[in-house]
């Protein structure tokens, strides 16, 4: 299992190669990409900023929790930081297991945990030259909503 932040383009084929194996018949993949529109505004790109030290540790905690919940699963995660253009992959998660159920369940768990817990923020850059933090006014989740913490 492996999880990393990276400033390099994501190579999903490489991630699949890390977790796929002859005894694992079910490999599942999620790729998050930068959308061209958000809330009706034309997006030119997104700058991803992370609390890097904590994000790395939180990614490893998410990996361990997924492995505990779904015995036998293997997982590879990469999340970008820095500036990305429209269509570029910001996150890739690949899971594998001998059967599709645990593989897909682990994939969903990891993606939702990343969305709700990983200390990463998006500064969205718009076509009109303005920029805005995504979800800056969002609700702060209660500690009890942060599964595994």
């Amino acid at each position, binding site marked *: 299992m492996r999880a990393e932040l990276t400033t390099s383009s994501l190579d999903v084929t490489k991630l699949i190669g890390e977790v796929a194996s002859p005894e694992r018949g079910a490999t599942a993949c999620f790729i998050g990409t930068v959308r061209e529109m958000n809330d009706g505004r034309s997006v030119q790109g997104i700058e991803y900023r992370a609390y890097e*030290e904590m*994000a790395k540790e939180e990614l490893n905690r998410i990996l361990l929790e997924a492995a505990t919940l779904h015995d036998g699963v293997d997982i590879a995660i990469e999340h970008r930081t820095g500036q990305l253009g429209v269509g570029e992959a910001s996150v890739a998660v690949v899971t594998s297991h001998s059967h599709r159920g645990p593989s897909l369940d682990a994939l969903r768990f990891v993606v939702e945990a990343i*969305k709700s*817990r990983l*200390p*990463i*923020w998006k500064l969205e850059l718009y076509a009109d030259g303005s920029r805005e*933090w995504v979800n*800056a006014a969002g609700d702060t989740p209660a500690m009890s909503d*942060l599964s595994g913490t």
Partner: protein
Amino acid sequence: MDVTVRVFASYADALGRSEVDLALPPGATVEDVVQSVTRLPGGSAIPLTPLAAVNHRYVSLAAELNDGDEVALIPPVAGG
């Protein structure tokens, strides 16, 4: 005791910096940190009940602090 407070994204923009050093009395909690930071210029933009972490782990605002701790006030996250 001394703690370092790190702030990010919209909170850092509001404060005009990403790090604040605080001297606090023994037994101080994360909530005391929030009270101090929100009184700084620009700090009113930070909610009184933000998500927080100590030494890279999420904690409740009632968590007691130790000398040298790194406290983070975490805006709503947006990974993925």
